[in-house]
């Protein structure tokens, strides 16, 4: 499956407002969830290209790889701030598997609040919020690889 086919699928999902979709084709599995929180309304998110926000493609090796995020595909509103990953690594929502997540959708954050961890080369890098506001969207699932510049959170500026 190539990126073109995935784009076609996303277009169809968007047109028919399908929120959750899985497809298996040979060794390739694709799972798309629109809206970020399993069927909740698109609260706090503007723009129509949300379909891309939780997209994981499992290739032959069965290893999860995040599809590259074309620039400008995620549109945030004027009063929103998009937090992107400053490094390539593994995204963790909590400091340890037993601990609660740093933030949930709806959490109030201030400038400097820790939002998540991106692990690179066995080093846990705490990613802090550059702005104060309310978490409106979490765009990556726990323990998924993220690349440089990949959108992680949407924050409603207050």
């Amino acid at each position, binding site marked *: 499956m190539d990126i073109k086919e995935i784009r076609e699928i996303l277009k169809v999902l968007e047109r028919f407002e399908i929120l959750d979709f899985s497809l298996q084709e040979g060794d390739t599995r694709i799972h798309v969830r629109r809206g970020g929180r399993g069927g909740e309304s698109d609260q706090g998110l503007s723009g129509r290209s949300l379909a891309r926000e939780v997209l994981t493609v499992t290739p032959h090796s069965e*290893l999860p790889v995040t599809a590259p995020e074309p620039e400008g595909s995620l549109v945030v509103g004027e009063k929103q701030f998009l937090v992107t990953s400053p490094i390539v690594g593994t995204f963790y929502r909590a400091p340890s598997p037993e601990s609660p997540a740093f933030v949930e959708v709806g959490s109030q954050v201030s400038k400097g609040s820790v939002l998540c961890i991106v692990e690179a080369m066995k080093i846990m890098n705490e990613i802090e919020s550059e702005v104060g506001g309310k978490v409106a969207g979490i765009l990556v699932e726990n323990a998924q690889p993220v690349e440089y510049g990949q959108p992680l959170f949407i924050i409603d500026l207050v």
Partner: protein
Amino acid sequence: MTFMKLFSKVLVANRGEIALRVIRACRELGIRSVAVFSDADREALHTRFADESICIGPANSKLSYLNIPSIISAAEVSDCEAIHPGYGFLAENPEFSEVCEASGITFIGPRSDHLRLMGNKIQARNLAKRAGVPVIEGGLEGMSDPEEALELAKQVGFPVIIKAAAGGGGRGIRVVHSEASFRAAFSMAQSEAGSSFNNPEVYVERFIEAPRHVEIQILADEKGNVIHLGERDCSIQRRYQKLIEESPSPAVSPALRKEMGNSAVALAREAGYVNAGTVEFLLDSDGRFYFMEMNTRIQVEHPVTEMVTGIDLVKEQIRISAGHPLGIKQEDVRVTGHAIECRINAEDPDNHRPSPGTITFYYAPGGPGIRVDSAAYESYYIPPHYDSMVAKLIAHGRDRDEALARMQRALEEFVIEGVKTTIPLHQRILRTLRFRQGEYSTNFIESLKG
């Protein structure tokens, strides 16, 4: 023979045509490839052609293609077993190779101690001497006292050349023609070396006027087998940057080839070197050759050797790093016909400045004996952040005349619009009588200007 496994997944820590070259080798070997790319290379071919690709940083290469933690992290999240560094960027960086080793990732190239040894030109000179390889008369240790250096310069006789121990690729070099200007040149060379390479060590050797630059490709495995694949003549250079390379060299006889080949093999053996490497020699007008330096990477001009020997050097690098013994013996290496390579750069022919921009029309030549290694395509934007090479055009023929005719024909067919390129310069060189007769040295481009 026991079954030996290759890697299942390799990360390519480079961009442009060499990243594509490695991805192609991986695909042919059934290895999955992972490209890393900067923000400026989202639309680049290596990003598109690899099985997976990961953005590792912004356009500035210090924060992306030279960013060791990001590249290692990308290899870890994508479960790569090995990293191919290509050429340039981190290819000859011993720290990078060490971090790979410490992270349990195979660095496809020589060990870090060999990168470090060959990165120091004084140590490399000493090694060559121990291996019985001819070196140019001069110092075998770094010098800091100008008076001591002047004594040595007088011994070897002017003109002399002052080189930085940590230099290479033509950087940090000063030619001194007389005693009067020696002291000033020496202190300038020292401070230049200190600021450019973080190492003020310099050394002095006799300057050879108008030599040819002839290099020997070697392959060495972990079992101690070392072979050479003949020479490449890289004398057509501008400001120490190679423009045209060919194999065989018009100046190397079968006897000389054997002698230079044996010297290169002896050097690699003395060092215990493993993987692909190139031993560079200067060849003077009397047919004497001298060790210059060893390059511990795959080189830009490697296709020239591939075309005449039929050996895929990048695949050999991967096999060697996976622990395979060399499948080729020295007596099996056959040089067939003649190959020549022109480096097509995006640059303004008037001022030699890079000419970045969007390629509005692109047609790559083909037909018998033509190979194009390029990451360019129509509508591709050549970013200003990286080097200006757009394509390598390689022509192979049953002899030099046929290779030259094919190259001229292919240069005429090659269409790159939207940016200025060195195609007209190559056409000019190929029409020159001295080049056609194979009678040229490293001062060829200088003499062309007149």
